[in-house]
């Protein structure tokens, strides 16, 4: 009985780690990225969206992005699991508030000043 439980646990663990390369997980960040990559591959193989696809990512960020002044987002570019937004005339308080909201949505924001505005980047690990 107990042996069966152990065997099932090991089978479950092996199934969970199938395709996740052990050498990729040298740091917690790398492990997280490897899990997310494998998860996305399997979701796509089933014809399902993955969390870092363009639309799901945008949907998760949308409530926080809605706090930006209307018309302030000049362009948005998606690639490699990340969105990059160019925001015009970004007030420091607005960006700080947005950063806090994005953080609480588990989408940390990278902010860089760009030509009087700001460039914002968010996405998967």
């Amino acid at each position, binding site marked *: 009985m107990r042996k069966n439980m152990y065997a099932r646990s090991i089978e479950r663990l092996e199934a969970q780690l199938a395709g996740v390369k052990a050498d990729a997980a040298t740091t917690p960040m790398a492990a997280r990225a490897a*899990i997310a990559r494998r998860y996305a591959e399997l979701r*796509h193989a089933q014809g399902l969206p993955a969390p870092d696809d363009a639309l799901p990512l945008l949907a998760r960020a949308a409530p926080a992005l809605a706090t930006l002044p209307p018309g302030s987002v000049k362009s948005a570019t998606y690639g490699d699991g990340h969105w990059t937004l160019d925001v015009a005339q970004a007030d420091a308080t607005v960006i700080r508030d947005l950063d806090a909201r994005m953080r609480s949505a588990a989408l940390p924001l990278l902010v860089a000043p760009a030509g009087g505005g700001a460039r914002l980047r968010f996405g998967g690990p």
Partner: protein
Amino acid sequence: MAALHAALRIPDPALRWLAAKSRSERRVMSALLAVVLVALAWALAWQPVARDMEALRAARPGNAAALAAARRMTDEIAGLARSSAQPAAPDARAGLERILAQQNLRSAVTQLEWQDGRARTVFAAVGYDALIVALDALQRDAQLRAVEATLTARVEPGMVRAELTLAR
């Protein structure tokens, strides 16, 4: 050990200088030395530790959320790995054309090229909301997702120029 003793030994000039002081002066100097040592320990050891603790405390909710998400993913990976891959919808081109027509966006497409199973699609001017609805339908009904996208705001409110690369 002998080297440590030698390093910690008070130099002879300092000992002679101390010997010349009264008992109460030596006590005051000892107290001052203790205050200086405590201040140094606070500045060099306690402050960095407190800063690190604060940073770790601030990062804790994010790390906990990331860990929970990773656990959810690994749980789901087991199920996904067991189930066989779903066969792709019959024809990506037909699917794209059908959804564009359904969403009344076919006439808004200004460029459409297929290469290596990827559709490069350009809308010179399209409503942002309509585009999002179409992308959702493409994912759901034709298993086509945007692997690259560039949306540029146009002067007309709510309108964008969209350059998309769609793939399965």
